[in-house]
Structure formats: C-alpha cells, structure tokens
C-alpha cells in the first residue's frame, strides 16, 4: 500500500480538471465520493492479494 501512495499523491495536482460550472462538481464534494470509490476498489484489490498469497501457500505445500 505504501508503495502506491506517492503515485496517488502525484495525481492530486491534476484534479483541477473537474468541471466547476456543474452543480455535481462546484462544491468540491465530488472528491469525497471519488475517494470512497477508490478506497473500496483498493480494498477489493488487497483482498485479492491475500487470496493470491493463500493459494500460493497451498501450491507450495502440495
């Protein structure tokens, strides 16, 4: 996880792309939603990593 944080941080300055004239974006709360979605997907990815490791362990035992 720590490895990816700098990558995500690098993306931050580019987020000014969001449309400001649209009510969905004008109050800036869209970033909260974006962060939530990203956290959910990263969580799923970490779950997959764990599953992958467990299967690797089983393969090594066999």
């Amino acid at each position, binding site marked *: 996880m720590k490895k990816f944080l700098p990558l*995500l941080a690098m*993306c931050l300055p580019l987020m000014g*792309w*969001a449309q400001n004239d*649209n009510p969905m974006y004008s109050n800036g709360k*869209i970033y909260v939603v*974006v962060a939530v979605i990203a956290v959910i997907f990263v969580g799923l990815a970490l779950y997959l990593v764990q599953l*992958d490791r467990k299967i690797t362990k089983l393969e090594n035992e066999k």
Partner: protein
Amino acid sequence: MKGSIYKVLGVLLVVYSLIYGLLTKVPDMPIIEESIRNLFYHVSMWFAMVAMMAASFWNAIRFLGTEDLAKDRRSISLAEMGMFFSFMGLFTGMIWAKFTWGAWWTNDPKLNGTAITILIYLAYFVLRNSMDDARKKARISAVYNIFAFVMMIVFIGILPRMTDSLHPGNGGNPGFNSYDLDNGLRIVFYPAVIGWILVGTWIASLRYRLKALQE
C-alpha cells in the same frame, strides 16, 4: 514477484480510471450529459468480457492441439470471468438505458445479441457439468467454446452493425470517435479497458490455480 507486475498495473489502471473517470472534463452531450462517464465503466466491462472470451477460445484451441488439461482449466476459468464481466456489463447497461433511452430493456440488436451470447455461454457451463470424464469433458467443451466464441462475435460484433441500433457506432449512429476530439475520454477509457482486462486475468488465474489444486 515478476509475475505480479501485471496485477499491480491492472489495479493501478483501474484506480486511475475510477478517479479520473469522475473528475476529467467530458464533452457536453444532450440527453446523456454526465452519464457519458459510464463509457469508462460500462463499456470497459464489455471490452474485458470479449478479451476474456478470446483468451478462453485461444486456450480451448491450444487444448485441442496439446491435450493438456491445464489449458482446459485456463479456458474455463477465463470463460467464467468473461461471464462475470458480461453480467456486470448487462446490469450497468440496463441502469444507463433506463436514464437515457427510458427503459430498462429495449429491443436493441446489441442487447438481444448479448442475451443470446449469455445463453450460449451458460449452455457451455451446463455442458461441462454434465460430463464426468475429465478428458472427454475438456475435449467437448473446447469444441463448444470455439462455436460459442464465433457466435459471440456474430451477435455482438457483426449483427448490431448491420441494423439500426441505439448504441453509438452501430447502424449509422456515430461512435465515440466523432465527438471525442479533445481525447479527454480516450485517456481514461483505454487505461480502464486495459486495467479491467489485467484484473480479470488475475482473478481468472486465481480460479485456475484453485482448480489445479482441487484435482
């Protein structure tokens, strides 16, 4: 670790598409408006599905050439993953259709073609489960897989383009290319497609390895 690079890359690309898909500037189109962002999520499901089915098809052919059961396990795992993507594409498409075309389901050739494709692939899973002998099962399902893949290409790739369709890029409707002038959509859409294909390959490989362990 070397074999895991594609997994990390896949996750990063999907995360990128989730973030930028919501934040990037999109063309202002009537009716679809902000829902044009579904291009990054809904359409990438279909691209990932076709890639999974193509890889499954390729492994089916390789099985017939080598009689190696590992190829058969790869083939079925990839088809299962492709099936998952097609259901996700179908359900997300239904939501999108409700708010742009006004109905959950229309008689659009692409929708009906997809429904037929899903039925063809469901028959593939039923066919597999109806046989006990591993070699016979693998051989017959590999042959059926080739048929199913060709049918998929016909139903979702060829027929919708020959008749009128509500989907962009079919039957005289413009594709995304024509109004995609600032490339704003493309720089999110292509990474999303590649990301989902890589993540799908990863999950399929987990299923494949589990199947190998179970035997």
